[in-house]
């Protein structure tokens, strides 16, 4: 806020600004806490899956819509079975996208396959859309030798160079400044693609979020920032994360065009992302999309969210505000989907996931050599020596070494 000065507008850095006559605590410009004047949210379908009158949106064709629905349902089923597998001790860790299926799938549908994704960790839907098979997911979770990551990362830390999906890195928000770098690279090459960086509500507290937004704006980098505001960062509700009106207003602070969308409305997400992506690529400038949603599941298998929120709240979102059901209702209303197809999908998929788990469980683990490879481009002598030393130890005490890790 500027105090009135007796100088011309030309001398104020940053361009001309309208003057004001006094500082007044009651003036609404000083009030930026989230009050009644919240940024509006773009939404297309109502809770029952019917298009809301007066909204503008692009229709999705039958093929895309059905594919979107099937992906969302598949993600939902896959998540629940993998979660159970973790509970049974077959997988060491898992993290679901329950309640947020609409965001990842609709986004994937709206983007081009050349757009590079920098995920947080709840974006498996994008991989699913782009062709990552159920077996691929299972292999990564079991860390076996068919895993693209060679068994080095925790479950759900997927990565696929081939599908333009950067490997998930656990520290929060580190992918955001990297997105500016990816966008910079795409800009240098003049490609018709953008960087798409995901973040959660909690991640917007990290310094990296702010610096990345600032960078992208200053550098006019084609980055699409998508924030999945699901209300919770493990046990921290958004009221304890920030005091602004959500995340969408933060874009304004950096000079980035921002939009808020109902993340549980897959059709709205599709439309918003399509428009945002076009803006990003055409104008080579960043855009921020805040997708409002709710994390129905626990943060991960290491969390029990009933400890800090009511069962009632969770169930309400799971039942009546489920993005999968909502989209299903719309697709069915267009007569593009039926109950029979639903039953068949669920049945087949369930079997497929269970089978994939069984197969993944039996595939052997990456061999010992892979402990030391890829640290550098070529294995250096000190690591070779360490491998030799390890093998000597194993030879002396073979009974203490895990039997499912091949030595060669």
């Amino acid at each position: 806020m500027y105090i009135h000065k007796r100088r011309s507008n030309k001398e104020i850095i940053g361009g001309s600004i309208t003057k004001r006559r006094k500082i007044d605590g009651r003036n609404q410009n000083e009030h930026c806490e989230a009050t009644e004047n919240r940024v509006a949210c773009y939404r297309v379908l109502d809770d029952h899956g019917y298009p809301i009158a007066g909204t503008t949106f692009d229709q999705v064709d039958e093929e895309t819509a059905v594919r979107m629905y099937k992906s969302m349902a598949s993600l939902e089923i896959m998540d629940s079975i993998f979660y159970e597998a973790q509970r049974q001790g077959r997988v060491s860790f898992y993290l679901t996208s329950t309640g947020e299926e609409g965001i990842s799938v609709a986004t994937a549908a709206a983007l081009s396959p050349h757009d590079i994704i920098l995920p947080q960790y709840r974006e498996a839907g994008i991989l699913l859309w782009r062709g990552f098979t159920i077996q691929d997911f299972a292999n990564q979770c079991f860390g076996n030798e068919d895993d693209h990551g060679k068994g080095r990362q925790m479950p759900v830390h997927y990565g696929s160079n081939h599908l333009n999906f950067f490997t998930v890195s656990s520290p929060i928000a580190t992918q955001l400044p990297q997105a500016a770098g990816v966008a910079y690279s795409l800009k240098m090459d003049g490609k018709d693609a953008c960087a798409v960086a995901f973040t959660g509500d909690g991640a917007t507290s990290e310094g990296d979020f702010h610096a990345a937004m600032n960078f992208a704006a200053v550098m006019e980098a084609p980055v699409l920032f998508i924030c999945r505001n699901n209300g919770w960062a493990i046990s921290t509700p958004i009221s304890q994360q920030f005091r602004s009106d959500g995340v969408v207003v933060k874009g304004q602070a950096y000079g980035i065009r921002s939009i808020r969308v109902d993340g549980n409305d897959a059709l709205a997400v599709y439309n918003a992302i399509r428009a945002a992506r076009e803006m990003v690529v055409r104008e080579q400038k960043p855009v921020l999309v805040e997708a409002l949603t709710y994390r129905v599941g626990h943060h991960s298998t290491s969390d029990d969210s009933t400890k800090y929120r009511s069962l009632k709240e969770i169930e309400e979102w799971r039942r009546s505000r489920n993005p999968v059901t909502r989209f299903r209702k719309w697709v069915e209303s267009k007569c593009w989907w039926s109950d029979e197809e639903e039953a068949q999908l669920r049945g087949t998929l369930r079997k497929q996931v269970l089978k994939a788990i069984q197969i993944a469980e039996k595939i052997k683990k990456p061999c010992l050599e892979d402990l030391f490879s890829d640290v550098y481009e070529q294995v250096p002598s000190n690591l070779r020596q360490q491998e030799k030393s390890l093998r000597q130890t194993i030879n002396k005490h073979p009974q203490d070494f895990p039997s499912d890790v091949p030595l060669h």
Partner: protein
Amino acid sequence: MAATILHGVGATTALSSINYNNSRRSLPERKRTSLVIQCDGSLSSGLNISNNRGAKLSTNAVAQTKQENVTASTTSKPGLRHELLLFEALREGLEEEMERDPHVCVMGEDVGHYGGSYKVTKGLADKYGDLRVLDTPIAENSFTGMGIGAAMTGLRPIVEGMNMGFLLLAFNQISNNCGMLHYTSGGQFKIPIVIRGPGGVGRQLGAEHSQRLESYFQSIPGIQMVACSTPYNAKGLMKAAIRSDNPVILFEHVLLYNLKERIPDEEYVLSLEEAEMVRPGKHVTVLTYSRMRYHVMQAAKTLVNKGYDPEVIDIRSLKPFDLHTIGNSVKKTHHVLIVEECMRTGGIGASLTASINEHFHDYLDAPIVCLSSQDVPTPYAGALEEWTVVQPAQIVAAVEQLCQ
């Protein structure tokens, strides 16, 4: 000042003992020849050779470095050299690589039209545009992250930290992502990034601008670390670091930027994993790097006058250590003195001591002595600052004690 260092050291800044013959090897995709010089004088056109081990140390160079005047001793043809300062050598290396490969780009604070705080990138923005030589906002973690993202997408970025100390803010990106992503992605993404900047104790720059980051970074798996000390090795290491597919951290020193040397006109690339034999000898192996090389060489002059024959090795490669060169030396002299600028606790010297003890214990006639800075923040007051850095007199005393 840097000028004092230069004056005091004389010939030894001029050339390392690396000997190479002038054979040319033409490579189809390059217009000029380029040589990778190994310690034993052998040549290769290969880059990123992690396991190269020369057979023997070169004996030719011994005669050369014992001369006191600056001579162009390692080329057979006169006039094929040009004189420049260390920061110019860095720039020359950088520029040659940018010319050669359009994927090479630079990012950092004030690197563009300002030319960098130490002028390493001067003129590059004018030549290559301000997209390839990118000025960034002040957020080290972010522009390092940006460099990583760009590297994963096919570029070869050089990230400049205005001062190495500021890169502490980039530690998260360097440790968790830069060093790890090639591994955790199963080899799908590579990160051919170079992170460079000036560090070390300067002239009254204050504690926060006198950091020795090599101590903190040395443990990060997946990165390589090198320290340059002469215009010759600065250019060679810069080029090697850029061409390497591994992430490399290149440590420069604030006080060495104005060192002058005549370097070859012909293109050359040095090996990232090799130490440099500065002065062969037989009584004691003195291991050092960066600015301390000059304090050691100054002490060496005094020691020679007193009848000692120290072997001085500039280790250059801080991660991994060139245990081959170091080992050969230890086997010859049986005494080791490490002279470093790092703090006593947890520095490069500490790791090197452990490493030599582990590998060459049987060859040592005395415990390894390590001269380091004290575990104190670097004071601003000039006299106090001087006493936190190892001085030639201390080095002389240590050698005398060690060789009793």
